[in-house]
Each structure stands twice: as C-alpha cells, then as structure tokens.
C-alpha cells in the first residue's frame, strides 16, 4: 500500500463524478490552497477519469480542451495560454457559451458555503463590519448556468456556515426563494468535495454521502457550523489504489511561480 496525500484522495473521490462527453470549466489565477482546490484537484480528477477511458474535457477560461496529459511548464499566462488546445476564444464569446449551457461542470470553491449551497466569495461580516474579498469573477455563472457545480473546499466552521453573509452564487434555496422561482437554467451545486468527506444536496440541503478512510461522522460535523443531513447508508470510500496513485503521479502539474 502506497501512502497518499489529501489532495490525491480528493481527486480520487471527485473523479467518478466526471462523465463521458462532458466539459468542465476550471479557473486559474488563485494562489496557495485555493489554487490547489479549484485548479489542481479538478485537473487531477479529470486526468484520472480520462485514464479510465472517460471522454471528459476541460476548459481553462477561454482555452478549450487543452491536452490535459501534457500540462504547461508553468502557471504564467504566456504558458497557460500557449498550452496545446482546440480553441482560444475571446472572453465575451466564451461567456456566451457558458450562458447557453455549454459548460457541463463548473469547479468552484468559496470563503463561505451554506446548507443550501449558496456561495460567498465577495464580502464577509455584516452591518458595520463588512470586509471585501476579491469579487465574484464567474462564480455566479458557474452556479446559474453550468449543468452542475462542484464545490471543492476544505471543511471548516468558518467556511461551512448556516447562512452566507453575501450571496455571490445562488445555490438551491435562500429563505423561501428556490432555484425554480428564479428560472435559473443550470443544475446548481451538486457535489461538495472536501478534505474529509463528500456531500450532495437533497430536500434538506447539504447531505453527507461518503466519508474518506478513517474519518467519522463526528469528525465531519465538528468542522461545520451547521448539521448537514445524512443519507441512510453512509459510504466509506476505499483508499486510493496503487493504480490510481500511479496515474495521478504521471500528471506533472507545474508549481506556482510565486
């Protein structure tokens, strides 16, 4: 048995949720842990799916279907956009595709995520104590228009909150307002991949569906500020196989330059 990292476990857990004929939208330009969550882990999971013969493509912003198996030498713009790919669209044309449903899966993370999958990357605090984060970028589009959004996020009581301070991306419900009331065409958040467990969304909101090896339901709930619903038969995911780890490790993703 080979030792595995948390990121590798997250990629292995995410990978079976990527399907034939789909395209996933991956963002770049974040730093540190956020870069691993929204760029590194989705790329690893996509590579793993493709290693099993699943025809899953990605797009890096307007760069469509880059050769995942031959990643760029670095994460600088000139390197990313020089990646062998099928198309390099202009951003406005790329947004058009997004809005009409061309993106199957959007990979996102958040500073705050609530029970209903509402996501906040904009502002935290409240009256008299607001602080700004970076801003929405295309997160609202991921939540509104992608076939489904997959959240990749470490468990923490600061992140998994009862109610987000500010809605950057709409989940399944806020107060009495539901997705169907708004006419949002995409599927919204469908899966939450964390460092310890997987969640989906049911009638009662976020729902614990699978634990990573050696993790208990208590470990999970202690790192959330609300109690998630739980499926009747909670799965425990197997440890990554040597074959999976071998496939993950053949993909040499570049280090961040800074």
């Amino acid at each position, binding site marked *: 048995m080979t030792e595995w990292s948390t990121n590798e476990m997250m990629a292995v857990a995410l990978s079976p949720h990527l399907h034939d004929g789909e395209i996933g939208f991956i963002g770049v330009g974040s730093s540190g842990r956020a870069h691993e969550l929204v760029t590194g882990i989705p790329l690893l999971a996509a590579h793993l799916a493709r290693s099993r013969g699943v025809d899953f493509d990605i797009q890096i912003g307007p760069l469509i279907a880059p050769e995942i198996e031959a990643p760029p030498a670095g994460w600088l713009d000139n390197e990313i956009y020089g990646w062998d790919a099928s198309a390099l669209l202009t951003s406005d044309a790329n*947004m058009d595709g997004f*809005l009409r449903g061309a993106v199957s899966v959007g990979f996102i993370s958040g500073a705050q995520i609530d029970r209903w999958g509402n996501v906040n990357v*904009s502002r935290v605090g409240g009256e008299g104590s607001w602080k700004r984060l970076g*801003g*929405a970028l295309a997160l*609202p589009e991921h939540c*509104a228009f992608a076939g489904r959004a997959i959240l990749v996020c470490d468990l923490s009581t600061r992140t998994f909150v009862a109610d987000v301070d500010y809605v950057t991306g709409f989940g399944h419900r806020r107060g009495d307002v539901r997705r169907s009331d708004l006419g949002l*065409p995409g599927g919204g958040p469908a899966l939450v991949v964390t460092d310890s467990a997987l969640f989906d969304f049911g009638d009662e909101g976020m729902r614990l569906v699978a634990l990573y090896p050696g993790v208990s339901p208590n470990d999970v709930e202690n790192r959330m500020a609300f109690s998630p619903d739980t499926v009747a038969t909670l799965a425990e995911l197997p440890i990554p196989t040597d074959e999976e780890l071998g496939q993950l490790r053949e993909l040499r993703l570049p280090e*961040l*330059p800074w």
Partner: protein
Amino acid sequence: MRNKMMDIAEAIRLVEPGSSVALGGATLRRKPMALARALAGSGTGDLDLWTWIGSLDVDLLIGAQLVRSVNSAYVGFGAFGLAQATRRAFVQGTVEFRDWSESSLVASFRAGASGLPIALTRALLGTSMAAEVAREIVSPFGGPPILAVPAARPDIALLHAQSADEFGNIRRHAPNVTDDIDHVIAAASRQVIVSVERIDSHQSIVEHRDETVIPGHYITAICVAPRGAHPTGCDGYYDPDGSHLAAYARASADPELLQSYLRDFVHGVAPDEYLRRVDADGGDTA
C-alpha cells in the same frame, strides 16, 4: 486616416475630473499600468472606474485617492493576494463599490457598444449583487423574470496592447492571451487611449488585417510605452514581474508604505524613469 500618436502625459490630459474611466486587461495581464500611473500622478479625481477584472490599476488609483466608485467583477492581485488599499477604501466607505459577475459586465459593455441603454442578464438572479447593479423586469414576451443592468458607456478607456500603427489600428498577434474584453470596452467608450509595446508600419497592419482587433477610427490616442503593462504581463513580450508585484502588494497593505510607493514610482515619475527605477530595484523583467 489621422495620425493618433501622443505622448502619455498629453493623452492623459484627455481625462477630465469626474469622468468615467474604463481600464482594460484582466488581473495580471495587459493592464494599462503606464497610463494608470500617469493618471494617478495627474491628480485628476472623482473618477468612476469600470473594469472587467481589476488589479493594481484600480488599487493604485484608489491609493492616490482619485476614485469615487468602482464597477467590476473583481479587484485583487490574483496569486499575490487581496487588493488592500481597495479593501481599506471599502471599510472606510470612501469609494462606492458596485460588484458584477463576469458575464453581466460583458453584457453591460456590449449594450454600451451597441448604443442600448440597458442589458439583460440572468447571471445575477438570486445574488446579493442584483441589489447593487440590477432591477428585475418582466419580459413583454412572457417567461420568467429577468434582470436589467445599465449599459457601460465610459467617457474614456485606457488600454494596453501589443502593437498598433500610427493611425491607431490595434493589432493582437501570437502568442496572445484573449482572456479580456478590450475590444468590447473600446467599442463602448466615448474616447479610447491605447498604449502599445511597439508601433507597426501601416503596411504591416494591412498585411495582417485579420489581427486588427480594434480599428483605428475607434481610437483617440496611441502612446508608445514599452513594458507599459508592467508589473503585469503582456502576451509574448514579458510575464508579470513577480518581485515588483509582491512589493506592490506589501505597499498596498500599509498606507504609509503605499504613499512611499507612489512617491517612488508614480508622482512626477515619467515612464522611462519608472522603468529605470524598476530595473534598479531588480524586477524580474530587468
């Protein structure tokens, strides 16, 4: 065709106090930094900034206390962290922030570019941003509610490009990065100033006319500014300057350091002197 060549100081005098100013590029690529520094040094204030994805351009102008409001989908330094002068202005309430998403801001600029007063979007439905920039309307043709947002129609746009001819035909050539909406911003703005890495002959533009992304008759002024996007990158010319970006991020976090940065690199510092000071500091592109 008219010759559009101006030096940066002359071009930046076209920006009037209280005007709306669009800034091109995105995050750490092709930001119009030489123009933004000249504007910051000019003291022209009460500016309403419009940028798709802002970074040092916005933060520097806020740091120079020239900004009244910001419309954008993001202001930050990407891998270099949060824009701290921007965050202080938000907390102090000295700048009004109207937050958009990427596609809703594209829609707004497109409406401006096509002479319409509003754009329609669904991207902000159910979000907190809707209250800042949108109003719900009912389609006269039926269907679910939809949001209207105002058209962006900036008084003047500041862009940085790889090259142009003296008539202002803006060329984008390989290797290029297309992840921006400069061509839409140019079409939406009443005046457009573009700084470029180099001037191409008109003959060369004619031979590569499929590479002209903005035609010269949209353009008010062309300024030659080698490394004019520094410390952000310019496709095929130079990458973002990591050490200078890190230094700016540190300065942005401390009001005194920021004033000292503005003294060293902005106020009264001409573009060629700026590059000499950057190189003396040992920037990555030195």
